């Protein structure tokens, strides 16, 4: 009953690989010639199509916004006073010619990158420590768990009391926001690490330092990057909020300032700038994460390999131990 399964599933996967965009070209005999290359060629076409869809989605949103505002739609929601994309674009062009806009961007970037870098180092170090040492967990986790539910922005009064300058306070808020998701994801990733790799390094004579460097740090990277992505997201939320409360430069400060003088196009320029900066930083982390975890078996490559590997050889890679954990840790951290 179970014997014919491998052949059947192989046939199923290879037909699944052929399926997307199976144009009515020739017949089943032709694709057998160079299956690998055919699949890859289709993958790039599919990739282009996906990019077109993504871009199209943005364009549609902006077009909808333009129509709602220029047509002065008032149907429950009122769009008649909201600036149109054209007005916002004009305001942006005006700001791009002055120096203040760039100064604000730079200031916000310096704040978030400083806070985020500190949070990454501290979050990864403490996450590993509390996962690996019961004693460290007993000492460090109770205060961490009590502070964790407090929204970082609610720490503003403390930041004002404790830090001599506003600048330090804002960096602290950013740090506090990013620290917890990074720490929690790292801790989960370390605990989910298969013991086999550690055993292997130990039987080579490796000590704690070797296990940490050759197993724990690389093995937890997929999970850690989950935490870094979430951390970057909340860090932006908090740096902008903190700038709105205190600060002399920065995109958040400028946006709030524009609101107080009822300059709505400038408010929207600020919001769009935050959106673009946030997206750029998140994308950089995503890209870095993918580069550093190339060793993970990825879904699309796996499908391709399965289709090429002969039936007798069941050794094709199956699991990515850290991969699943990444999502799980991040989910928990964000709650």
């Amino acid at each position, binding site marked *: 009953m179970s014997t014919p399964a491998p052949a059947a599933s192989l046939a199923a996967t290879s037909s699944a690989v052929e399926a997307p965009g199976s144009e009515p070209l020739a017949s089943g005999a032709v694709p057998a010639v160079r299956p690998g290359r055919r699949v890859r060629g289709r993958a790039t076409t599919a990739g282009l199509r996906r990019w077109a869809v993504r871009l199209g989605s943005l364009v549609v949103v902006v077009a909808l916004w333009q129509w709602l505002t220029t047509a002065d739609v008032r149907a429950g929601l009122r769009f008649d006073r909201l600036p149109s994309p054209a007005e916002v674009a004009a305001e942006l062009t005006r700001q791009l010619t002055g120096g203040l806009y760039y100064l604000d961007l730079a200031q916000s970037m310096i704040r978030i990158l400083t806070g985020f870098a500190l949070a990454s180092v501290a979050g990864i170090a403490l996450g590993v420590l509390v996962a690996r040492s019961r004693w460290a967990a007993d000492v460090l986790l109770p205060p961490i768990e009590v502070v964790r539910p407090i929204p970082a922005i609610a720490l503003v009064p403390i930041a004002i009391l404790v830090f001599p300058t506003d600048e330090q306070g804002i960096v602290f808020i950013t740090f506090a926001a990013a620290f917890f998701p990074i720490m929690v994801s790292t801790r989960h990733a370390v605990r989910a690490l298969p013991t086999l790799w550690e055993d*292997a*390094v*130990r039987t*080579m004579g490796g000590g704690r330092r070797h296990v940490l460097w050759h*197993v724990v740090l690389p093995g937890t990277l997929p999970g850690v990057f989950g935490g870094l992505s979430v951390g970057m997201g909340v860090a932006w939320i908090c740096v902008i909020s903190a700038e709105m409360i205190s600060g002399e430069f920065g995109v958040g400060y400028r946006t709030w300032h524009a609101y107080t003088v009822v300059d709505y196009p400038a408010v929207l320029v600020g919001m769009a700038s935050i959106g673009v900066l946030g997206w750029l930083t998140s994308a950089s982390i995503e890209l870095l994460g993918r580069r550093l975890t190339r*060793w993970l078996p990825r879904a699309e490559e796996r499908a391709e390999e399965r289709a090429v590997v002969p039936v007798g050889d069941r050794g094709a*890679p199956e699991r990515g131990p850290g991969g699943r954990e990444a999502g799980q840790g991040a989910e928990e951290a964000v709650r």
Partner: protein
Amino acid sequence: MTAAVATARETGLAIRLEGVSLGYGRHAVLEDLHLDVAPGEVLVIVGPSGSGKSTILRAVAGLLTPRAGRVLAQGVPVTGPSPDRAMVFQDDALLPWRTVRRNVELPLRIRGVPRRERGPAAESWIARVGLAGWGDRLPRELSGGMRQRVQLARSLAAAPRAVLMDEPFGALDAQTRGEMQRLLLDVLRDTAATVVFVTHDVDEALLLADRVVVLGRGGIGRVLPVPGPRTPETDRAGLRARIIEEL
């Protein structure tokens, strides 16, 4: 360092279990084991799954502390893992983020072999297990049999005095398993290391062993010497029948 590696190559490790009891948590798996492994011999432990074969191996490796008794390596009690006692695991023990070459280099790096000596040493072991040209691949790009070849190279690269093999071919299909057994016989010819090999496959035991230890439900049963070890033409039907009877 190179001197230490050289002596290791010359002599295998004598391993002795004295009244060893093993288990995880409160649960005892094996009680009062006595076993002597001579330097340089290939000892195969055969037993059904759940009999505690791997547990014995983990104790010898120093990954598991006995609840009672002692494990001795060359007369010295084992208190933890050592590069002298290398281990080959059943599957997926390669570090997936390191290429084949960097996996094989790792024990050398841990032993403190200088970088420029590591590369050539790793390369020659990769070639020795028939994977020349695959050094830059990641484990996920390799089949199960190839990954076990890399593990074999990795465990032998630092010239350990004992190699502990935990069902290393258990997850392979019959044909690949046969190839791997031939490769292992071939590689073992050049090393003086003591080998403790765990398997549930009686034929595999007979093919590789100097002596076969039968591990039944009640612990270590008979220790049976194999006549004319590692010579394929010898007829071992009688011994095979005895082992199966013991199991």
